[in-house]
């Protein structure tokens, strides 16, 4: 950690890269993980029910 790796032009420091990534996680994952919309779960249920109604292997 004490030695600083050389960076190419246009590259941000590893610290800045890490902080950007951490905040991207907050930005995109927090709200997306909160609750799956009921409509989406209903869609999955409907698709599974449709599959269950068909004979296995029949496609």
């Amino acid at each position, binding site marked *: 950690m004490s030695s600083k790796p050389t960076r190419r032009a246009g590259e*941000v420091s590893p610290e800045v890269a890490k902080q950007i990534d951490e905040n991207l996680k907050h*930005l995109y*994952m927090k*709200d997306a*993980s909160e609750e799956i919309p009921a409509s*989406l779960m209903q869609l999955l249920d409907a*698709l599974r029910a449709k599959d269950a109604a068909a004979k296995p292997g029949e496609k």
Partner: protein
Amino acid sequence: MNIVNSDVVPMDPREEIVTHLPSLRAYARGLTGNVSAADDLVQETVLKAWTKFAQFHAGTNLRAWLFTIMRNTFLSARRKGAKEVADSEGTFAAKLASKPDHDGRLALQELMVAMNQLPIEQREALILVGALGFSIDEAAETCGCAPGTIKSRVNRGRHALAEMLHLNSEEQIMSTDSAVSTVMAGTPTGL
């Protein structure tokens, strides 16, 4: 190129798909910049995936497979002009702004606006690798390009964000008076 993990007993993709919904939603939000368009995109992706499960080979990386379907669906719609692509002032940003409970939330809105100004290739590479923790190889498989291309897009995307948010040097992270400094300095409390 397919990433196959032979050490893991494959689940039925029809069951496993549920575990990928949060990250699919996150990717969709990054692509569309819009909450409702993102959820529509997730639904379309699920429907398409379901019709293609017969072609899915057990042991294939389901996550990358699903993300590729989502990406292709989005890009196809974008080419047809059927969807708004980026919405820097749109509903996702508005949702963030509607909860001004701490500086971190406001800073995230700045980050969102900055992200939506990036070219789609850089934005998706940053979301996949930075936000969702994809490996470079997995992101490359998802985007159908070389790993070096993903690395380059991630680097250019981070650089552009750092420029827009005035985070060009490590010294500036703590000194900027922007609200971004709060969130960039560490995990906001209360999250």
